[in-house]
């Protein structure tokens, strides 16, 4: 069994105007030591997937169906069916998360050091106070923070320092899986490079699974073994990272990968995907990308394409995929 198998996960937000279909039939697996990158337009449901997995939904988040099997070697457990007090054992120690909202995951009235210590002492009650403090100092160094600043409060940190504190927190209990949601948006490229290397090192050491959500395509290329491309609540393509970058088949993936600003070469006009982002309250019928897709045909707006394995490990939901070189029209 893989470390994590997610089957047909569906979660909607209930609002006055109807359901926001944020997670709409998501399936994937994650092995030990593997990293999955998730990319997709702002608002397509990436954060919602992780919140559903961890069962940290807001009041109006309605779980609809699906399974999340977690297997750390002692047999698969469906996290969805667990009572809350059982689930708590899996958060942080089983699956930990670097939240996109760095500030929201730090408590403003406690020092940063105390918060990480508390997580360690909660999950490993045998740890002594001094051991825990030493571990926090070590984590601080690992993410490039001066351990002298352990006793400061979150508001005394810069944006990137808070982000690093949250990464330290997520690593504090030696999790089996780490979900990192835009963890490096506030970091300069040198610090970012260092932290990604450290995370990779820890991942290898603990044989940890990693889910990495980011808009930074270059970072995704660097950290992911495989990449899932999400559009309007659904995965539309999933494959190893070289395939996604070099031979994408879904027109949306192609759009996403074909143009990004660069610091070298000629300064060019940047590409945008034409049309408006989809309304998840009332998604278009058929393929949700149809109103913006250059390959769309009549069938696309009538019938929804299934997410199928077109070659080993390569999943795709599209009626008219991009032709590969050598393929006949």
């Amino acid at each position, binding site marked *: 069994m893989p470390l994590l198998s997610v089957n047909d996960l569906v979660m909607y937000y209930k609002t006055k105007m109807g359901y926001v279909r944020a997670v709409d039939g998501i399936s994937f697996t994650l092995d030990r030591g593997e990293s999955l990158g998730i990319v997709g*337009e702002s608002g397509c449901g990436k954060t919602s997937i992780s919140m559903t997995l961890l069962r940290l939904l807001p009041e109006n988040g309605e779980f609809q169906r699906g399974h999340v099997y977690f297997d750390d070697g002692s047999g698969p457990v469906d996290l969805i069916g667990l009572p809350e007090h059982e689930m708590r054992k899996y958060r942080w120690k089983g699956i930990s998360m670097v939240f996109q909202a760095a500030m929201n995951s730090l408590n403003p009235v406690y020092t940063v050091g105390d918060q990480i210590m508390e997580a360690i002492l909660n999950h490993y009650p045998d740890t002594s106070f001094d051991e825990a403090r030493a571990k926090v100092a070590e984590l601080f160094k690992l993410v490039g923070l001066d351990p002298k600043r352990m006793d400061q409060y979150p508001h005394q940190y810069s944006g990137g320092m808070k982000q690093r504190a949250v990464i330290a927190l997520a690593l504090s209990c030696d999790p089996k899986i780490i979900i990192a949601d835009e963890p490096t948006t506030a970091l300069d*490229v040198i610090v*970012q490079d260092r932290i990604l290397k450290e995370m990779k090192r820890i991942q290898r050491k603990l044989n940890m699974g990693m889910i990495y959500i980011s808009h930074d395509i270059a970072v995704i290329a660097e950290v992911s073994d495989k990449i899932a491309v999400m559009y309007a609540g659904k995965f539309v393509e999933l494959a190893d990272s070289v395939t996604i970058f070099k031979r994408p088949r879904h027109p949306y993936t192609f759009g996403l990968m074909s143009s990004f600003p660069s610091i070298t070469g000629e300064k060019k006009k940047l590409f945008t995907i034409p049309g408006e982002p989809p309304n998840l309250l009332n998604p278009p019928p058929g393929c949700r990308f149809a109103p913006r897709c250059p390959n769309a045909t009549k069938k696309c707006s009538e019938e929804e394409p299934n997410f199928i394995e077109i070659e080993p490990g390569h999943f795709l939901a599209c009626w008219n995929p991009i032709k590969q070189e050598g393929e006949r029209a």
Partner: protein
Amino acid sequence: MNGEYILEVRNLKKYFPADRGLFGRVRHFVHAVDEVSFEIKHGESLGLVGESGCGKTTTGKVIVKLEEPTSGELFLSGENVGKYVGPRKRDYHRKVQMIFQDPYESLNPRMTIFDIIAEPLNIHGIGNLKEREERVADLLQEVGLTPPSSFMWRYPHELSGGQRQRVAIARALVLNPTFVVADEPTSMLDVSIRTGIMDLMMELRQAHDMSYLYITHDLAVARYMCERIAVMYLGKIVEISETEELLSNPLHPYTRALLTAVPVPDPEFSRGEPEIMGSVTKPIDPPPRCRFYDRCPIRTKDCETSDHPPLVEILPGHFVACYEVEKRKQG
């Protein structure tokens, strides 16, 4: 219009207390911004890049007068704004806006998206309710939160990270400000939406003769948006120049390291090893010498004993603060 510059920043300093000793006396200080000077022309965007924690946000907050500087002066269109009070201060707050770095922190959780964006209109008594609604709907449309009616009456916690970021942008732009400090405004947006927002910001700049201080870690974004880039390290500007010149001819060892470490969107490529030493940077009570000394691959004995180097014009319009670069130019 008074003179060439919309904004001039002179010898700006901001120190924060790092700890309090016995009897509440402050013994140590974080030198967040340390003698920073720059100016921005009418209609220009200046990019501000640099290490995490080097003082970029603090610089921005001082400019929008959310933080009092420890010392230094600020001029808007040639006028010293340090002593602005009452209506002049209000007017300043109308003209000068900031898009905050963390949209999870900066949006009031108890206000609807409409109220958040319309609040500045409210404060300054602009338009009636209907006009405000139209203005907000237009802005939502422009930042890609469509259809506007499905976003206006939601609360921030009902939005994704990138959606909140766009609300923060709309709020900062609602008054057609003359100067905007944009602190990582598009860090949570995908390429396509990001490009749309950057184009919008450029259009507004042309239409309203706006200027930006654009803080970002993404040098490609700085290249797209900014005529000039300033590189900051531990509270100091270490290099400043026209954008293409800076990217093709970086001179300060920190800038060079930064450019080497830029990741490339290709899974078969691994980024260069930046030439930089040491690790943790300590902005608390730094010694007077060059702030980059501890990590500098080309430092000399002179650097150790001298003060932090001044910014010197090495090439026309290209300023660098480094003794070695200066020597090499002369030698």
